[in-house]
């Protein structure tokens, strides 16, 4: 699967693929066929809009909600599902599961599920680029939860002092595991913290893929031309629970309903229909393609072998 061309319809289809993939995962989990997992349902525009402005020589670091970033970057849903189901054909030979999938061939590196782990590693990835004079920037995805970790502050400070080409992308999805951001931060936005480190920043409506794309382009260009960090905050919402299964009994129903009305996929469909760039039949064809892609991905994953027992202690040491 290729990275996404810069047009509204292609971005919509990729968002639909991410949604279908994660809903399939959730249903597999509910049916007892997959381990628990973290989804990014509701945050697809943030992933697709930002990844869409990156080049092949850019590097991406992500976290436990990585499926959107990986699929946006062009990951094969079959190899992703195989990984989640613990099969040897997965991107990490079945040794990661859903929580820390990396795909070096896609430039998606060093995924860490320790909240904030990716922030600790991004500076080193960027340092390599700088010292070796390599083209490209580093995009580091994290949430408002990770921004409350000390490592966020250490990372931004060092990136600023050492002038590292990092596009920090804070997906502010309002939830930090089972705690609402309101309980853990005195302000709404992580972007305001960047200024203290001399890092330019911006908050964008994370549920509008066009706006995310435009803001990400500006941000990425700023990093490319200055060689210095930038923080882009996408204001979005985690529509499913922290982890599958999660009944979300702790979520205010009114807030959830409000954000459901702002679903980024429905919003993009409406925009494209209204502007006449797509018709309903075209969207149906997209849905059919996406469903087919997920069905064949699942068939591939389920037909794939588990790793041999001898794999237990391989890849520990280089």
């Amino acid at each position, binding site marked *: 699967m290729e990275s996404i061309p810069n047009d509204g319809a292609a971005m919509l289809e990729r968002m639909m693929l991410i949604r279908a993939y994660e809903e399939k995962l959730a249903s597999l989990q509910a049916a007892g066929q997959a381990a628990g997992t973290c989804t990014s349902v509701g945050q697809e525009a943030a992933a697709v809009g930002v990844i869409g402005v990156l080049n092949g020589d850019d590097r991406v670091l992500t976290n436990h909600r990585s499926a959107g970033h990986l699929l946006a970057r062009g990951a094969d849903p079959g190899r992703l599902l195989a990984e989640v189901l613990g099969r040897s054909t997965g991107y990490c030979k079945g040794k*990661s599961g859903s929580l820390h999938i990396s795909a070096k061939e896609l430039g998606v590196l060093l995924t860490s599920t320790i909240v904030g782990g990716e922030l600790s590693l991004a*500076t080193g990835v960027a340092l390599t680029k700088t010292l070796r004079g390599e083209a490209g920037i580093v995009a580091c995805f994290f949430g408002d939860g990770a921004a409350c970790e000390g490592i966020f502050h250490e990372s931004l400070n060092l990136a600023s002092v050492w002038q590292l080409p990092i596009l920090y992308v804070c997906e502010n999805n309002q939830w930090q595991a089972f705690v609402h951001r309101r309980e853990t931060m005195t302000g709404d936005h992580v972007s305001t913290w960047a200024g203290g480190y001399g890092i330019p920043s911006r908050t964008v409506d994370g549920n509008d893929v066009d706006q995310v794309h435009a803001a990400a382009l500006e941000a990425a260009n700023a990093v490319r031309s200055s060689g210095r960090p930038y923080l882009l905050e996408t204001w979005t919402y985690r529509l499913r629970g922290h982890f599958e299964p999660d009944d979300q009994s702790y979520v205010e129903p009114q807030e959830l309903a409000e954000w459901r009305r702002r679903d980024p996929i429905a919003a993009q469909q409406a925009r494209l229909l209204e502007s006449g760039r797509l018709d309903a039949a075209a969207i149906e064809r997209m849905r059919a393609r996406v469903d087919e892609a997920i069905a064949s991905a699942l068939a591939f994953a389920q037909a794939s072998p588990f790793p041999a027992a001898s794999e237990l202690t391989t890849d520990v040491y280089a």
Partner: protein
Amino acid sequence: MAQITVNEAIAEALAEEMQRDPNVIMFGEGVATKRPELLSAFGAARVRNTPLSEAIIAGTAAGAAATGLRPVVDLLFAPFLTLAMDAIVNSAGKLRYVSGGQFSFPMVVMAMTGGGWTVGAQHNHNLEAWFVHSPGLKVVMPSCAADFKGLLKAAIRDDNPVLFFIDMPLGHLPGEVPDGEYLVELGKAAIRRAGADITLISYAKTVDTCLQAAEQLAGDDIDAEVIDLRSLKPLDEQAILQSARKTGRVLIVHEAAGPCGVGAEVAALVAAQAFDALKAPVIRITGPDAPAPSSYPLEQAFIPQADTVVAAARRLLRRGTGESVPAVAERMR
């Protein structure tokens, strides 16, 4: 063969490896300030000071290592490693495995520890066993100038993360270091003194303690063998077992606390694989299960001393004295 100090040996290793491989970089708290010779030879891009931020120092090293550099980072004092554990243990140690072998982490983390400078518990904590217990990491803790140089050079060339512990009082210790390129393979112990009656196994500063003890024991016609582990992971199991089978008596000495320490691992190895050759229980002499004190006499009491080693060795070799060996062991710990 030149006579240089441990600190000079470390500096030589760093300079030689940075000269040999442009991917070797070094950063940490005061690295550029304290190593002006490296800074002037290799420039500010490759020799860097950092903020006092252990977590991001270690994380930056891991990220750089995974993408082609060979960072050496100095975290100064071992207890500060607790602030860098995520990057070292969860990232550098695990992400190779978790990613199915997509990445490797050729990096060295240096830290000082060990009693002798009366710096107290938050600058002195021998926590090397923590890293032995963490998959994906290698751990070395040399005892002499030659090994500091040879092991550091080998650690920098190794494709895995290596924890390089510097026993603090050894820094100014002079020693013979071979001229020219000198490497010591990770995972190989050294026999510092050959002997037939008892094996004293140690690493770092207490290797010398064991050598002093062996000299005293020689006066009693007790011929002690002294093994310097040097590498705690990988552990040179063959060297340990060979000596245990030869002497039948094993006394392990380290400054780190006993519970789940390196000595426990060595004892378990000997019990499992050389039990038939043992003539006495395997005994450990270790630091206590207490934070390292600052007061000099207390700190000296914390560190295993030669007299204690001698007494334990004598008792292991004496028979029919009416004092049971396990009782001795209990007291020694």
